[in-house]
């Protein structure tokens, strides 16, 4: 096998993760890890079992996961539903672009966490402020990606379509939209990851349930293994969501990047 084949690098990644996990297991087995700093495997396994069995702070573990996913996904889905049409408008109308883009460009580099106090002030400490924060962040990325997708549709492809006798409406739905689908899906992947990563930040806002809440609360009571379980769960779910969207992308856009 040649060293530059993709399969080769995939194996390297698997081996790299395997070595790290192996070192951790060996260190756990040797008993050199401090359970309250870097917990050994048996402590984490115990914590997972406890969490699954007893839940946390009076709520089952799946409910903690469900609460976080519910917030992340509702913020994300609304951001896609609003961000795609707005992005299409920005990408196809220079006037609309000139009107709204200054605001979006200004908001984009602001770390969402800096907005937490304001969001609590506006939307209270309930679900609304959390979903709103996730929505805003995802929305900002959905619009840029969608707009750049629409702008990157080749001018000649639109002219060719006109010459085939298509109406403006047909060109929009049957040419512009599919031609921007790749950029829209990339935007969805970035936004999905961001939404999920933001859950912890959003749950800093006085949450009573959720993986972010679990991590914060367990830290307060110095239950470090629980903190690790929370973090690892967030990481694994993030990977799964990203993988899911990648799968959709490969199925739907097998032609992408091959022109």
């Amino acid at each position, binding site marked *: 096998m040649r060293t530059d084949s993709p399969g080769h690098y995939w194996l390297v990644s698997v081996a790299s993760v395997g070595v790290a996990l192996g070192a951790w297991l060996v260190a756990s087995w040797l008993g050199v890890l401090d359970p309250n700093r870097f917990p050994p495997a048996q402590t984490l396994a115990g914590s997972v079992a406890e969490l699954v069995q007893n839940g946390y702070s009076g709520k089952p573990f799946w409910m903690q996961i469900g609460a976080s996913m519910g917030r992340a996904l509702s913020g994300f889905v609304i951001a896609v539903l609003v961000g795609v049409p707005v992005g299409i408008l920005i990408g196809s109308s220079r006037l609309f672009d000139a009107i709204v883009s200054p605001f979006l460009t200004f908001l984009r580099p602001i770390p969402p966490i800096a907005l937490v106090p304001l969001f609590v002030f506006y939307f209270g400490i309930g679900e609304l402020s959390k979903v709103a924060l996730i929505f805003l962040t995802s929305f900002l990325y959905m619009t840029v990606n969608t707009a750049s997708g629409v702008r990157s549709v*080749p001018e*000649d*492809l639109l*002219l*060719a379509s*006109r*010459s*085939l*006798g*298509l109406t403006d409406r*047909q060109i929009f739905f*049957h*040419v512009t939209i*599919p*031609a921007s*689908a790749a950029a829209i899906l990339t935007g969805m992947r970035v936004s999905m990851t961001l939404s999920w990563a933001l859950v912890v930040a959003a749950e800093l806002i006085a949450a009573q349930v959720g993986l972010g809440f679990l991590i914060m609360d367990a830290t307060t009571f110095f239950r470090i293994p629980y903190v690790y379980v929370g973090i690892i769960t967030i990481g694994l779910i993030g990977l799964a969501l990203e993988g899911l969207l990648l799968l959709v992308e490969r199925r739907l*856009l*097998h*032609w*992408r990047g*091959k*022109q």
Partner: protein
Amino acid sequence: MSGGVALEVRGVGRSFARAGGGEPLRALDGVSFSIATSEIVSLVGPSGCGKSTLLRMVAGFDSPDEGELLLDGRRIAAPGQDRGVVFQQPQLYPWLNVIDNVSFGPRMRGVARDRISANAEHYIRAVGLARFERHYPYQLSGGMRQRLQIARVLINEPRVLLMDEPFGALDYQTRLGMQRLLLELAAEYRPTVLFITHDIEEAIFISDRVHVMSAHPGRIIETIDVGIPRPRVYDEVSASAPFMALKLKTLKLLAH
């Protein structure tokens, strides 16, 4: 198809504003010619002679500052399927396979399904892509993509076929194959063609008439009637005395 004059270009002029301001650039100046039904006419000239600008006007992508363009006596105002455009870089739908790319235009215009599929298969076979109906554009070579683009235009049975340096991006061998294909298609379907190229041999080999243009401003400086009988076979034509004489004459015109 009705006979007589298909396309008429009358005193067309077009200027473009320069990027840095100043005198506008005179891309086309008083260009007139006409194409009869089933004629193949080429425009050759250096880059900047406005040949592509003119083709875009016939397609309806641009409009002249002076003069007018008529298709069957009607003024050209917008793009339409009566003028099939073949771009140098094939403008295909990467998410559709070969048969769907070809069927796309008629499907959007609401032509009956069974008629579309019969026609699509016919034209796909005509351009030599019969075994590739289920392939996507990214699975095709440059020459095959250009064949696909031609089939997608032919299915509309356009009044004029507009080809903008269609073989310019292809390698030499493929280009010869495409020229041969175009002549075969011309013999079978008798299309009216406006062909843009900077390749003199290509222009002479495929055309009935060649308009030689100069740049700045873009004008027709001479019109050459090719008069080589059809069917033409490249190996025979390219070595023949009349071909050589025409090529030499055109080269001299362009050297000025």
